[in-house]
């Protein structure tokens, strides 16, 4: 059914050019490299605690060993000043770290709720100054890359993703998310050759046991395996599992696997391999919906594009209706330009009126 036949369709008339209805406001961040550099934690405060403690010990020793009463009174006063300043320093550093962590949680929440216009300036401000902790900075950079991708600044997002992968070498569950984000951004930015390499890298990660196994490998390399109980080492798969990976993935790896399938689906749509896209969707439908939750709407939308190109309008209409039942249409249109032509052909599934 054409959208024009739908009396409740919120879409523009067919004569106007199809386009996104609600684009998020653009918040230019400037050069992302500037934020990457400016957010590096400084070493100013790193040694301050050690200096204050060493001075305190020296003064106490001099006070105990000293014989001159006047000098002792002076040293006593200095010891008190150092003690108080040490406490103030420790308290202020802790307070600053807590405030930074709370700000990161708030920004993460805003991005999850798609309040990009509110999250952007706060993240920009946070990254403009040296951050308190290395972990906090990595998390902020991941949020920046996510935000830039959502706002369709894919080349800028790639700069941040590359920094996280190539320079910071982020691994484990966070690393899997970063690699997925980069693969998707590469596809959006039409770097198809690099995207293919990124997809193969993700496949190898899954074959090696997923993000959990990668994390475990990183712990072993860092020497943490000594703290683990005997026998647990054997849990690390050294060779690819013989079971189909879709059936063994759970938790964070289910998300990684579903993300990988979505990226592969988008690649197939992007490169015109419609038959492969349709087959991938049907083979991995359960994996996609288990790992992606409501974002499985994106897979439905992409397969709708494939059906449409394969001249199967009934299937395309059903897939498009399913996609728009799970996610608002403007969001899908903003994320995938390939979906935009479908709004002139197929009816969405609007939410009922309140």
């Amino acid at each position, binding site marked *: 059914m054409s959208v024009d036949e739908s009396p409740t369709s919120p879409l523009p008339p067919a004569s106007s050019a199809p386009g996104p209805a609600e684009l998020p406001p653009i918040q230019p961040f400037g050069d992302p490299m500037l934020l990457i550099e400016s957010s590096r934690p400084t070493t100013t405060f790193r040694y301050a605690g050690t200096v204050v403690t060493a001075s305190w010990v020296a003064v*106490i020793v001099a*006070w*105990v060993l000293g014989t001159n009463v006047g000098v002792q009174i002076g040293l006593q006063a200095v010891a008190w000043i150092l003690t108080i300043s040490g406490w103030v320093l420790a308290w202020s550093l802790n307070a600053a770290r807590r405030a930074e962590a709370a700000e990161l*949680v708030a920004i*993460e*929440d805003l991005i*999850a*709720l798609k309040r990009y216009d509110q999250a952007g300036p706060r993240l920009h401000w946070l990254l403009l100054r040296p951050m308190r902790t290395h972990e906090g900075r990595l998390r902020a950079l991941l949020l920046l890359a996510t935000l830039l991708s959502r706002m369709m600044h894919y080349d800028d997002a790639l700069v941040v993703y590359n920094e996280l992968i190539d320079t910071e070498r982020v691994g*484990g*569950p966070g690393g899997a998310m970063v690699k997925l984000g980069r693969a998707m951004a590469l596809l959006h930015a039409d770097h198809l050759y690099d995207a293919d390499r990124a997809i193969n890298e993700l496949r190898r990660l899954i074959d090696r046991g997923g*993000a*959990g196994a990668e*994390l*475990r490998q990183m712990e072993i390399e860092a020497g*943490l395996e000594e*703290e*683990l*109980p005997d026998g*647990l080492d054997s849990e690390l798969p050294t060779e690819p599992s013989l079971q189909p990976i879709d059936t063994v993935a*759970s*938790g*964070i*790896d289910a998300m990684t696997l579903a993300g990988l399938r979505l990226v592969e689906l988008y690649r197939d749509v992007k490169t015109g391999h419609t038959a492969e896209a349709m087959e991938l969707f049907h083979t991995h439908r359960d994996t996609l*919906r*288990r*790992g*992606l*939750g*409501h974002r*499985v709407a994106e897979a*439905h939308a992409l397969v709708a594009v494939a059906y449409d190109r394969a001249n199967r309008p009934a299937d395309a209409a059903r897939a498009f209706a*399913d996609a728009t*039942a*799970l*996610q608002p249409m403007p969001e899908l249109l903003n994320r995938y330009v390939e979906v935009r032509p479908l709004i002139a052909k197929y009816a969405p*599934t609007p*939410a*009922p*009126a*309140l």
Partner: protein
Amino acid sequence: MMAALPIPIPADRAVARARVAILIGTLVRAVILCGIVAGLAMVTALKLDFAGTVTLLASVTLWLMLTIRTARNQQGLRRVGLLLETRRYDEAEQVLAETLDGFSMFRAPVLQALHHLAGLRRAQQKFDQTRVLSAELLRYDSRPQSSRAVRLLLAESALELDDLHTAHATLTQIAGEGTLRETMKLTELQIDYCVRVGAWPQALENLPWKIELAELLPAESAAQVQAMLALAALKLQRHDWAQWLRRRVELLVDPNPLIERRPILRELFLQ
């Protein structure tokens, strides 16, 4: 010397061990503080400069040493969150047992270990143990703002165990603004509670916001929340909403396991 905790750690043994650890930590802190006060008194009031200074330095040194030991004991706890996230439950349990077995001068690491253990039991669907552990945690910190996460655990385990009185009491005590994750969990539990007691209008209150939150949940939770909202809509004769929400649920999960977990939802899918 106390015997090491067995693995898996029984909830009652963990609670008993935590109580002993907190008591020992409190006593040690009290002794050291007494030493510091005595040292200061000797230096200032009794003019016993050398003895007072030695007492003072010994007390401060002991405090520092035990604080460092506590921090070392606590180091493993930092990994537990990640271990739980990647479903490495055996390793997480081992770290928690080591933390509870070790010395801790402060109660925060002990309570954090108990909290992680409660989270682990929740992930393992052992809700009776989650309830015991979260109730114990509330004995130490019952402030509405800081105990939100623990109260959410307690409310969820109570709901899973069909203890609606505890669930109601706990949910009504949760106050203030939490993180998005806490808000999502709270909304999920409130809807679950409302549906179980047949409070259909309350379940549908602020519906767009509830749907927005449900969309952020993992597939199974998102489906369960929206299935319950669909049931509430059906009860209130809002068939358009019931149909739309049910379609979303069917696109997200297979309804059969959902009905098995929440038999009340059978009515929705029989339509």
